[in-house]
């Protein structure tokens, strides 16, 4: 898809979960890691976060929670983990392995 203003933006507005603006990246990881459909993936993430499935796409719930859990936030917060550091925290939170974190650990192994 090109035309970002006509595709990425309205798809997000109409039905998107919001990525790290809320919790869409976490649900996506469960779909791919455990072959989950949307309902079970949301339930799994909600249970791990201690919130309801409805709250996963709720910015009011997720903005603070993501910063508290150190799993990456949408705004530029100095000192807040992002990239590999945030993904390592997501691994622990969701009880999954993330490929780039595995590679990072291999590279830093003595």
């Amino acid at each position, binding site marked *: 898809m090109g*035309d970002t203003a006509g595709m*990425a933006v309205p798809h997000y507005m109409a039905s998107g979960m*919001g*990525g790290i603006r809320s919790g*869409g990246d976490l649900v996506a990881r469960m779909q791919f890691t455990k072959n989950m459909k949307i309902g079970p993936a949301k339930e799994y993430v909600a249970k791990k976060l201690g919130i309801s499935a409805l709250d996963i796409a709720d910015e009011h719930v997720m903005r603070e929670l993501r910063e508290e859990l150190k799993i990456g936030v949408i705004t530029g917060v100095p000192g807040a983990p*992002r990239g590999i550091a945030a993904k390592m925290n997501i691994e622990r939170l969701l009880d999954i392995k993330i490929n*780039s974190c595995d590679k990072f650990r291999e590279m830093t192994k003595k």
Partner: protein
Amino acid sequence: MTQFYTRMGDGKRVLMTKEQIINDIQAGIADAADMGGVPDLTSNDIDMLFDIISDKNRIVGVEPGNEVVLTYDIGQLDFTGDNGNSGNGVDVGRLESALLHERALGADTFELAHADYSIKPVKPVIANEMQTMEEIQNEIVIPYFYGAMPNAGLYYAPDGPYGNPADLMREFKIEEAMKAAELTADHLARDIEYVATRMVAAGADGFNFDTTASAGDADFVGTLKGVEALRKACPSTYIMVGMAGESVMGIHGSIEYRGELAAGKYPHQQVKMAQKAGANVFGPVVNTNTSKSLAWNMARSLTFVKECVKASDVACHVNMGMGVGGIPMLETAPLDALTRCNKAMVEIAKVDGI
């Protein structure tokens, strides 16, 4: 009689009555049901679809709680590409593009892409692609794929080493055409394994096979064999297989994957083959007919995709770009039409993602 503003498949605005819209919905359903041998939408579905199409608001959306995961094709080419990809022609870097999608555009996932967005041209620049993947993985949080089209067409003359089946068939060299397609499928599978395993070694969360079967049944079989090899080499990698159309074209005609004919398969059958090969997520495609109304195209797409979602054991992320999923075939798809297609796919076809 009340009339509603709606669209044609080319995006042109038209006025239609309720009766005209319902008639087109029923005709779209009948076309898909007849072609694919799938059930009709229910009367409840038809009522819901009419309500969505006739909504007075410019933009519509799903009810809170019904949100789904978004995945993407062409990666940063949506910013950098030319109008062939509806790209903006802005020469932004691949790292910046990925982070802008993550932090400015609400993306749940994203991907890295080569400018030609095909498997074959990635081979000579694989080291370049690997180091860019490593660099971006250090910064990004959302699942970040490598994406490319299998694009078996690049393996046929004049671009590739094998005879072009279209030319050979014109000369009635049917066996040579079939052989060229078979050799292409095997070559494509080898190239997929080469490229995809290296991108996973560079830290990619997974691989997005986009526009699969664009060159027909041998393209589909080659991709499935490549997916199978990737799954064997990288058991935990994320694999998404997105299609090129609702029906696999029989360019070869009798090529099979694991004993099953590839030609003529519809989304609810394609997904079973993709699952067997090792896909985690499947992307059904239904192409838009520009001469028919939005109502006709939406109904037809929903009929195919609803059955695909029912048949699938893995998540289905329906393709919803320009000219697919009921969306008008227009470089700048109208927002009213696009959001209506989005809502209908989520709440009627029950897709797991877009």
